[in-house]
């Protein structure tokens, strides 16, 4: 009877270690994926911890269990459990708990704490972790793309007044504004405000813009756009805001050119007028 009891205990131990082993392998796979992702974002090139996994499989030793997993890993553990096993939804947690029960003599206190923390976490985060993890993963991917973009883009040349690149339509608009200012000073300014013709000109430019070739405006990935993207603002909103801001800057630049040309012509006419007198 004693031998039968011993055999039973042995088999349960073996079963526990096998299930624990599987759970541990699953957990490590998930952790390695997130680690890999983080390393890629940060630019650290380290091989993932597959060696430990192989060792686990070969030796079947659950002693290399990570004692204090991070919050991210806890989340992945829980989601991994939910995704992988339907029969045992809390496989790893149960595995750890069941591991802690007989191993009181060993790393008992820390593993018990992990088990209790996992229990609390699983109650609270069961519904939100899949969505939260998806969001987390998408943001990691976006961050990695942005990092690659920032690294590949050349640094912008130093430009104190922030003048944008001038394409043919921009030059056309600036020249048009200058010519209009001259015309207004010579013929129109006695009758109405100088800003009325300018507004009319802007409306005309809005209509003419479709007839000009639109150069591909590459959205510059700056730290600001990267921060806005990572904070959750959709890229469409950011690009539209940047487009609107760019158009406002263009209109302001044209207004400055228009006003400067008007004043310059006015002063020249005054000077030549006094000379003639």
């Amino acid at each position, binding site marked *: 009877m004693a031998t039968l009891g011993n055999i039973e205990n042995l088999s349960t131990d073996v079963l526990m270690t096998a299930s624990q082993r599987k759970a541990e392998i699953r957990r490590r796979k998930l952790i390695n994926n997130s680690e890999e992702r983080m390393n890629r974002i940060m630019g650290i090139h380290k091989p993932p911890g597959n060696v430990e996994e192989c060792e686990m499989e070969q030796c079947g030793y659950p002693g290399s269990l990570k004692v204090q997993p991070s919050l991210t890993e806890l989340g992945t553990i829980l989601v991994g459990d939910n995704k992988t096993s339907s029969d045992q939804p809390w496989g790893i947690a149960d595995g750890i708990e069941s591991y802690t029960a007989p191993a009181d003599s060993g790393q008992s206190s820390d593993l018990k704490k992990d088990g209790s923390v996992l229990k609390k976490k699983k109650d609270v985060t069961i519904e939100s972790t899949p969505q939260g993890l998806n969001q987390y993963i998408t943001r990691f991917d976006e961050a990695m793309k942005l990092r690659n973009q920032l690294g590949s883009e050349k640094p912008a040349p130093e*430009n*104190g*007044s922030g*003048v944008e690149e001038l394409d043919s339509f921009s030059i056309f608009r600036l020249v048009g504004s200058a010519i209009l200012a001259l015309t207004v000073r010579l013929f129109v300014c006695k009758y109405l*405000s100088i800003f009325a013709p300018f507004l009319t000109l802007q409306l005309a430019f809005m209509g003419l813009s479709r007839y000009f070739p639109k150069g591909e405006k590459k959205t510059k990935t700056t730290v600001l756009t990267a921060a806005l993207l990572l904070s959750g603002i959709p890229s469409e909103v950011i690009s539209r805001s940047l487009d609107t801001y760019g158009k406002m800057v263009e209109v302001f630049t044209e207004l400055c*050119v228009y006003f*400067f040309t008007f004043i310059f012509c006015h*002063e020249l006419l005054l000077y030549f007028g006094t000379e003639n007198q």
Partner: protein
Amino acid sequence: MAEGCAWLLVLLTVFLCNLFKTQLPSLSTIRHVNIPLQASGCGENKHSAVKARTGQQAKIKWVVSIVFYVLQAALMVSLIWKYYSEPVMVLPSKWIAPLERLVAFPTGIPGAVGITCWLVVCNKVVALMLYPIS
């Protein structure tokens, strides 16, 4: 005549400041060329000499930039101080309606062009003019 040329004085000042700003990198490079190479021959000594020279160049560039920006800020403040209540030029007020008050700031005189408006306009236009050079 002096008051009539206030707009020209401001314009020339802004033009010179922006021109000097575009030439800043070349100025620090000229200083760099004048510094002779001390070490030669041995690889390690050459490497350390190059490193020292690069560091010195960066310091000079930094000092020149700071001096320039301080001078530019002082110049702008002095212009604003001088033309704070005095208009740069005066136009018939109906020409610049409905933005008379904005254009006249800080003089408050209807039809006047204030120093702030003229400085902003000159900065934008001079930047455009110097765009091919920069």
